[in-house]
């Protein structure tokens, strides 16, 4: 058994209800079924990590929560996903409105080619916030929560793309925080940035998780062990077959006493 220097903390402050409930989820890219039979409850606040080998559908699953997959023609979702008890795939649900509540951070930092200020103000402006003092306040607060304020407060009019990779990623986090989402999806947010910045983002996740439900897809098992409270392990057993969720549980248990043989093989590095 691999020993991960996991700082898996017990959250004893208050009981956590399910923020997202997934039931019997199947996902299709055209004729190809990518995910099958996923049923899971993701708790409010805290960090849930999705781990598994490349191509096992973690990111696909993550993108179901803000319906980003809708943008890819030919995709189909069966089963239900409830966010706060509401079916987000119910007919008539506006994915645009959903995405304002469910923020997303991508693997490649993707600030808009506009100023740092405008990047953070982008979401509030979409919501119709136009008053300068109000925007100023939101921008400052969001950058502060993303631990970026000190570094950029003097250079807010400068282009977001002039920042370093790690700063850009925190800028993207600030941009998401500016619209006060209660869920933040992070799709391998640290795989394209330098180690010092990774540390900063992990610290940030730790601060944010008291208020926001964070789901992170990561290839880095140490990272999953460090930052998450719950972990889900995904696996596609054979090429061409749909992937499934093999095991879900408290991170401490997944990494120390996994119930499934395949989970154990993966986290001890036998494949993937």
């Amino acid at each position, binding site marked *: 058994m691999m020993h991960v220097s996991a700082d898996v903390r017990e959250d004893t402050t208050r009981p956590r209800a399910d923020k997202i409930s997934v039931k019997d989820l199947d996902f299709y890219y055209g004729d190809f079924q990518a995910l099958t039979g996923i049923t899971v409850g993701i708790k409010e606040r805290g960090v849930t990590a999705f781990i598994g080998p490349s191509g096992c559908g973690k990111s696909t699953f993550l993108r179901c929560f803000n319906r*980003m997959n809708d943008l890819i023609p030919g995709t189909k979702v069966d089963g239900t996903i409830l966010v706060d008890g509401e079916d987000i795939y119910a007919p008539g649900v506006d994915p645009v409105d959903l*995405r304002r509540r469910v923020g997303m951070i*991508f693997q490649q930092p*993707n600030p*808009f*080619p506009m100023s740092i200020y405008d990047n953070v103000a982008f*979401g509030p402006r979409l919501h119709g916030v136009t008053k300068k003092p109000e925007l100023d306040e939101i921008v400052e607060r969001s950058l502060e929560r993303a631990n970026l304020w000190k570094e950029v407060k003097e250079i807010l009019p400068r282009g977001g793309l002039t920042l370093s990779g790690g700063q850009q990623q925190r800028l*993207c986090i600030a941009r998401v925080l500016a619209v006060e989402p209660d869920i933040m999806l992070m799709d391998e947010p640290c795989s394209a940035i330098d180690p010092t910045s990774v540390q900063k983002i992990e610290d940030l996740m730790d601060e944010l998780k008291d208020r926001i439900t964070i789901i992170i897809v990561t290839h880095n098992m140490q990272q999953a062990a460090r930052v998450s409270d719950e972990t889900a392990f995904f696996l596609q057993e054979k090429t061409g077959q749909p992937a499934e969720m093999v095991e879900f549980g408290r991170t401490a248990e997944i990494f120390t006493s996994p119930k499934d043989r395949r989970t154990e093989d993966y986290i001890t590095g036998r494949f993937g």
Partner: protein
Amino acid sequence: MADEPMTTSTPSESKSTLKLMSKSMYAKEAALRNLFLLCATAAVAGVALIFLFVGVRGWPIIQDPGLGAFLFGKVWSSSTDQFGILPLVTGTLVITIGALLLGAPLAVGTAVFLSEIASPRVRSVVRPAVELLAGVPSVVYGFFGLIILRPIIANLTGGLGFGPLTAAIILAVMIVPTIATLTEDALGSVVPGIREASYAMGATTWQTIYKVLLPAASVGIIDAIILGMGRAVGETMAVVMVAGNAPQFFQGLGEPVSTLTSQIVIDMSYASGTHRTALFGMAVILFLISMGLVALVRVISNRKKEG
């Protein structure tokens, strides 16, 4: 080289397994390099020679009536030997601006539709259709303008329908493929991540287009419009057929005007003496305008790269 006595101790010399470039290979490489250099030089030389030719033939116009009288002269009349090109310059300007006002939004809209909205199937029909517009000979545009459009404009403005409005509408259609194709390229080269980021922020398709994509592609779009402008300034045949070709100042959308290019093509067959020289002088002006437009594109692109 292998036969040489090994006097040095550098191992790389004695034991190199890398093949040396053969002489014939070297010669071939050099020949190819020179061939391509020649191609590039030929293009530059062509431009330079044309400029030299029209410049030399047009030069006397600057001496005889003088540059001011040529550029700002208000009368173009071969019978009285007055060759002021101001009416022609204004004609060109009015028609070009009109074409841009009508054509640029149409073209940018087409590009946005193709790049962001159309399904692959619709795109596969619309895009070739737009590209086909670029392949239609300009005389056909002129013919269409003359037969179909002119009567309609005549009803609208009174008169015969020859004039800047008809010309601008025809030119607007003609510059659509230039602007649309280049704008679509500009939108396509926007980093894909920011399109996703915008949607993930809860922006609608429209918000994504006008708040994120169009600003991100703005430099490319401005370049596209400038190049479309170059096409409009230089277009001759279609304009000759519908503009009316009266070398007078702009008097109304339905009143005949003439442009630099159309006046050259009409007068060239019979002009002589100062008249002919003036036409060459106009060619120089056209040349300078397009050089200016290309330079403008360069400046804008470079400034964006720096900032």
